[in-house]
């Protein structure tokens, strides 16, 4: 390129660039002023599929251990025993180490009732690794046993409904879910 061509090109492109940046000075900024200067909590704006901190609805946990097996980093530990007298599955321990969890969603996929699921919560910062362990079973509970027909227990029905909706999001080989 010639000498004067270079000068012309520089002036033209810089002029154009300055025009673009000038036009940006009157555009609306895109910043989301998390966490305080926003109208809606960020958690409420997230899609249903959002993979935030894990949560377990013990009421509908069947104790099938599918999530424990699916977890590639073994951050879920479940102790479930069959009670000899009542022949019911009893959950003695359901711990998730959220410090290790990588939010891959592989555990909630095989869950038959949608008990273990990701919430839109993402604010998990804490001061120690120990406090990142969520111990869901406070006292041994009896595992949920799916009933044949629709769930009748009014306490469990809404939870199960939410759980099944969560499961429905996952694609199934059978066709459109």
């Amino acid at each position, binding site marked *: 390129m010639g000498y004067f061509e270079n000068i012309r090109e520089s002036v033209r492109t810089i002029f154009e660039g300055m025009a673009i940046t000038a036009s940006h000075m009157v555009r609306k900024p895109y910043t989301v002023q998390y966490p305080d200067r926003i109208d809606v909590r960020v958690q409420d704006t997230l899609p249903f599929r959002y993979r935030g901190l894990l949560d377990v609805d013990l009421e509908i946990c069947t104790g099938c251990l599918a999530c424990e097996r699916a977890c590639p980093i*073994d*951050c879920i*530990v479940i102790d479930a025993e069959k009670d000899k007298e009542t022949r019911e599955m009893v959950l003695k321990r359901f*711990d998730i*180490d959220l*410090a*290790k969890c990588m939010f891959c969603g592989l555990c909630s996929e095989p869950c038959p009732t949608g008990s273990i699921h990701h919430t839109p919560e993402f604010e998990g910062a804490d001061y120690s*690794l*120990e406090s990142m*362990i969520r111990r869901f079973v406070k006292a041994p509970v009896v595992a949920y046993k799916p009933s044949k027909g629709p769930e009748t227990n009014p306490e469990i029905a809404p939870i199960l409904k939410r759980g099944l909706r969560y499961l429905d999001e996952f694609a199934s080989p059978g066709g459109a879910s």
Partner: protein
Amino acid sequence: MDADGIHRALREKFAGAVDPDWVAGEWPIVTVGSASVAEVCRLLRDEPALGFDCLSNLSGVDRKDDDRIEVWYHLLSYRHRHQVALRTTTPRLDPVLPTVSHLWPIANWLERECWDLLGVRFVDHPDLRRLLMPEDWVGHPLRKDFVEPDEYHGISTRRESLLKL
């Protein structure tokens, strides 16, 4: 050239080193004796009809049960748009292969990586140092019998799962 042609061309030159059987597929697999890998590769690169101008991948596989290490060379030809995979084996105790780094510059790093992770020695490689692991690392991590040392320079490599407590 189709896979059969490539295999035939190799058989013509290296009847002893190239296995008479080959496996068809997207990457036709040709098995080659470990000693003549470099010559086979040179032929593949320099013969105009073959024209493999690119070494796409070089991977070692530790076959502990068979007591050998397999090394795969995935070769591509941008000129002719064909491809071939060479497979060679070398004993696990003292894995030695001739280098191909003088044929394709990329082989330099791929062979260093293979040495680093699997301990395959490439003879005549210009600069066979560790690539990914630290220089003073002991052992080759992708070997099946590799045991991670408990500590490295005083830094513990273990952390008990808090869930076990």
